[in-house]
């Protein structure tokens, strides 16, 4: 794919395909940059890891170290035969989405107001900074006193874990909007509401998304923490129960499930980001 010519004065648009770049690099730098090269390395390392683990675990106590073969059995049992994984998964993801969704809405609103109104920022800033720095798990006992051991507790924790990164990043994004772009809106006689919807929010989007990405991982931690310490349910609850009965092989299954959920949600978020911000060229550089 040949690159388009660079712009001449007042002329054609500038656009160089990202694909062209990576192909170029592959032929220059070698095997490890081609798709086959990458996947070969990944598969080979994975196989070596599994085999080494299998051999080690079979030599030492099987119960303690859970060789991959046992883990595979557990996976099949929990996903297909008994299917208990799915129920727990639904519970955890449900709480995650509810709390996380609320955190985004509230967080963006608060961050927006704090970014636009200096006074509000100075008033709220000490609390936001302090609570952001505080590990959310430390609040569990306090939350138990307030909410009791109930569904609200999980939602509260997920919400608290997720809302502060969103607030802080939204505020930074709002303050970071190019002043000259705000001038454009003012010259056009835009009302405050129009300024916010047409300039501030779109301009702050990259920051807001960064905050949402952090909030997602924090919210997930919140769910698991709540499920492992206060209400023993969902994936976290599964971990506790299997641990209490020393079922090491089974123990890996919810852990792997959490990993998969986390990776999948992050990837989904990236996709969403790319769709909502088609003008952002940073994404064009991310490779295979």
């Amino acid at each position, binding site marked *: 794919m040949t690159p388009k010519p660079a712009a001449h004065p007042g002329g054609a648009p500038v656009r160089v395909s990202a694909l062209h770049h990576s192909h170029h690099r592959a032929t220059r730098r070698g095997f490890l940059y081609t798709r086959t090269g990458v996947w070969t390395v990944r598969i080979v390392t994975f196989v070596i890891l599994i085999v080494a683990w299998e051999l080690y675990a079979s030599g030492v106590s099987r119960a303690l170290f859970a060789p991959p073969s046992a883990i595979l059995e557990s996976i099949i049992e929990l996903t297909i035969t008994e299917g208990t994984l799915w129920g727990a998964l639904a519970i955890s993801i449900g709480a995650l989405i509810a709390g996380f969704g609320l955190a985004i809405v509230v967080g963006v609103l608060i961050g927006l107001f704090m970014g636009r109104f200096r006074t509000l920022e100075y008033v709220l800033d000490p609390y936001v900074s302090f609570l952001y720095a505080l590990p959310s798990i430390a609040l569990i006992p306090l939350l138990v006193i307030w909410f009791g051991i109930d569904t609200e507790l999980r939602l509260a924790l997920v919400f608290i874990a997720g809302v502060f990164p969103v607030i802080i990043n939204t505020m930074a994004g709002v303050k970071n909007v190019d002043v000259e772009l705000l001038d454009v809106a003012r010259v056009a006689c835009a009302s405050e509401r129009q300024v916010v919807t047409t300039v501030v929010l779109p301009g702050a989007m990259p920051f807001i998304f960064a905050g949402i990405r952090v909030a997602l991982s924090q919210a997930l931690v919140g769910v698991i923490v709540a499920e*492992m310490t206060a209400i023993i349910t969902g994936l976290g609850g599964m971990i506790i129960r299997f641990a209490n009965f020393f079922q090491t092989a089974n123990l890996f299954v919810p852990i792997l499930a959490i990993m998969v959920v986390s990776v999948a949600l992050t990837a989904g978020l990236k996709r969403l980001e790319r769709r909502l911000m088609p003008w952002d060229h940073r994404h064009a550089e991310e490779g295979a």
Partner: protein
Amino acid sequence: MISARTLRDPTMLRIGSVVAVLVLWEVLGRLDPIVASYPTAIVAAFVELAFVDNTLWPAFATTLQGLVVGFAISSVLGVAIGFAMGRIRLVDLILDPYVSALYATPRIALVPLLVLWVGIDFELRVTIVVLSSIFPIIINTYIGAKSVDRELLDTGRAFAANGWQMLTTVVVPASIPYLFAGLRIGVARALVGIIVAEMTAAVTGTGQLIIQYGRFFQTDKLFVPVIILGLFSIVLAEVVYFLQRRATPWANVERIR
């Protein structure tokens, strides 16, 4: 005389709002101390725990030990791995999926497994701290190593620097800001990690205090370790920031006009 100007001054607003909340807390808290306690009770509890009972400092010391050792390990390892992954393609390919997967997993989910493998004492704390803090360090160092300005690399090559020289004279100095960003995030996560470990598995430490006081509805005592942790977290971040400024004297100077 409070002029209108003073009322709008940022520091005044911050202090003012904190004072206002403290007063409100005091008044409302006394109505039902179990819910959220109130500032004077918390201060009294602090005095009791810190000086009379002597429960606070030993617990804090235990936490600190695990934190310091764990963070030391993860900074050294993390930076080394980060640079290795950033400069050597093969290392990058091999480690990347596992680094990403582990980074994505909440450490607390791994605690029961780790308890089975390493027990519930010092080793557990250190392991959790390492697992919590090493990933941001690796990732940020990695980005730093990869983001070195091409022109600077070309300069090194033009002077025929060998691999090791390139690393020490160009790559490392250029990556220091990223490194410190990673360390800052890492230190915060390390603190979270050790509290998590102490609240779920260990029997001593600041995290355990929180659990105990919560269990017995001693809300006033409960707030003490919580607030201390929050403040400590901020202090740690400032310390790392300070070290960063010392390490990069070239980054902060004002231009000579």
